[in-house]
């Protein structure tokens, strides 16, 4: 269990970083604050499930940020400094290093998520006098998977590159791609296919439009989280789609599949490159 030794040391190392504590505090403020603001702005209107689900909004922004910051230097940073020589000089394979780092940094991010969600739970309890415990725990679970996915993207980027600066470029690129740029991708594709943009009067959208949307792990997360509140079924009713049926990829559960794909593919690509790399 060589990766376990790597993971444990990596966790011990990472929790000593001040950056982690700053990010956890920010995350806590965002989640607890989001619940509070939502209630304060909209008064008593939203029910408890809505307020709980609203947690996915701050999570969708802060978790990618946290995971990328926590993990983008995991391997590239060690390559640049030279500590990777100590690590690989011990009986660890390069896969042990990649997988151990993935596990170690996921634990770090998960710890942050648990702290932030515990704060949100207390806030919900204070505002509503009760807490949907099962829903809340399931939402936490999906959120941890989302965190794992972004740690995977960051570890993949870190394994792929030899220097801190390139790993950082990849991490920042991934952040903007999924937070900003991807929002325009479905619209752009729609424009190319249909010759116009979908407007407020467009009653039906093609199913692929939703597929392009869910390919963004941020959207895959909110869709996956919606399983807890609306079930694993269709993202939209059939009458809102062009065609008569709702394909499998326009179902909430498909969001979880996309999250797993975004975990596996970057890690595999990063490992593939790292395994062949000369470490000088």
């Amino acid at each position, binding site marked *: 269990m*060589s990766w376990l*030794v*790597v993971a*444990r*040391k990596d966790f*011990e*190392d990472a929790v*000593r*970083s001040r950056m982690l504590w700053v990010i956890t505090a920010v995350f806590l403020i965002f989640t607890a604050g989001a619940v509070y603001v939502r209630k304060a702005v909209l008064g008593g209107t939203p029910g408890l499930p809505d307020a709980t689900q609203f947690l996915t909004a701050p999570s969708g922004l802060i978790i990618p940020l946290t995971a990328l910051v926590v993990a983008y230097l995991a391997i590239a940073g*060690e390559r640049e*400094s*030279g*500590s990777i*020589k*100590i690590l*690989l*000089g*011990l*009986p*660890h*394979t390069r896969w042990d290093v990649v997988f151990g780092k993935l596990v170690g940094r996921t634990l770090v991010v998960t710890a942050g998520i648990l702290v932030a969600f515990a704060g949100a739970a207390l806030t919900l309890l204070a505002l509503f006098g009760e807490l949907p415990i099962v829903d809340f725990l399931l939402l936490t679970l999906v959120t941890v998977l989302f965190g794992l996915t972004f740690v995977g993207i960051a570890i993949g980027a870190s394994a792929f590159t030899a220097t801190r600066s390139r790993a950082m470029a990849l991490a920042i690129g991934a952040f903007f791609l999924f937070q900003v740029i991807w929002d325009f991708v479905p619209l752009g594709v729609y424009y190319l296919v249909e010759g116009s943009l979908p407007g407020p009067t467009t009653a039906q959208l093609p199913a692929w439009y939703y597929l392009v949307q869910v390919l963004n792990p941020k959207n895959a997360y909110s869709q996956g989280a919606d399983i807890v509140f609306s079930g694993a079924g269709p993202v939209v009713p059939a009458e809102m789609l062009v065609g008569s049926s709702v394909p499998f990829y326009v179902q909430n559960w498909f969001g979880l599949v996309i999250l797993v794909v975004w975990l596996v593919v970057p890690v595999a690509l990063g490992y593939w490159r790292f395994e*062949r790399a*000369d*470490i*000088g």
Partner: protein
Amino acid sequence: MAAIQTEGLTKRFGDEVVAVEDLDLTVHEGEVFGYLGPNGAGKSTTINVLLDYLRPTEGTARVLGHDAQDETQRIHERIGILPEGFDLYDRLTGRKHVQFAVDSKETDDDPAEILDRVGLSPEAADRKAGGYSTGMAQRLALGMALVGDPDLLILDEPSSGLDPNGARQMRQLVRDEASRGTTVFFSSHILGQVEAVCDRVGIMSEGRLVAEDTIEGLRESMGSGSTLELRVDRVPENLTLDGIEAVSDVTAGGDVIRVTVTDPTVKSQVINRVEEQGAVVTDISTQQASLEDLFAAYTTEEVTA
């Protein structure tokens, strides 16, 4: 079985740079092998291939009977390494570092005992490695290398960053390990440290192994033996040492006669001959040809070994 064996090992970086070329190197089990050469000669590249940090362009490297690239983990379970250009984990203490090596190698070494052996005090061991000096970092890394009583130590420039006292302790440690049966392979460009501890040496120059021999053997092949220095009351006129074959050079000046011999057993013969010619020898000293001389000869001139 050889502890280290490379066959036709070549490592190129890009199309232009040949760091190591067609290297056939054998290090026997139980010996202390000094891997010498100036900076940039290909020593670290060789070591990095042995440790699988780098992949060879051509040829193979075997360590303890295992292929360095295909069976890396099995090798690393049995060796201790001190790599060149390494860094520590700034936020972890020295003790945690050694504990990590213990966990990684699945042994039951006591970190405190290891740290003591490499001369790190308990106070230093509890400090974060980020605040360590180069010498302390070198000691800590060496301690990690000693975890699990390895069969082979591969040390890349082990004395770099150490003060003279630290370098002396390093040599003692190498001797101790060797006497426990550990094979030691270490590189250096500082030769004084090698001469005292090595059974055999290899000399690298511009990516090629230009010599591989015992220090005695190297001396013989270079023809530079030891120098006998005789202090006399007066230098005999027409001094001649003809007939003693092992004498390669004679110089005299003032009251000193210097005789270079390729075979140390002829020294008494030389002294007798000098006294026969009427001189009284008042003092005798001998000087070994230093490895420095050999090294300079191998790496600055065109020499084919």
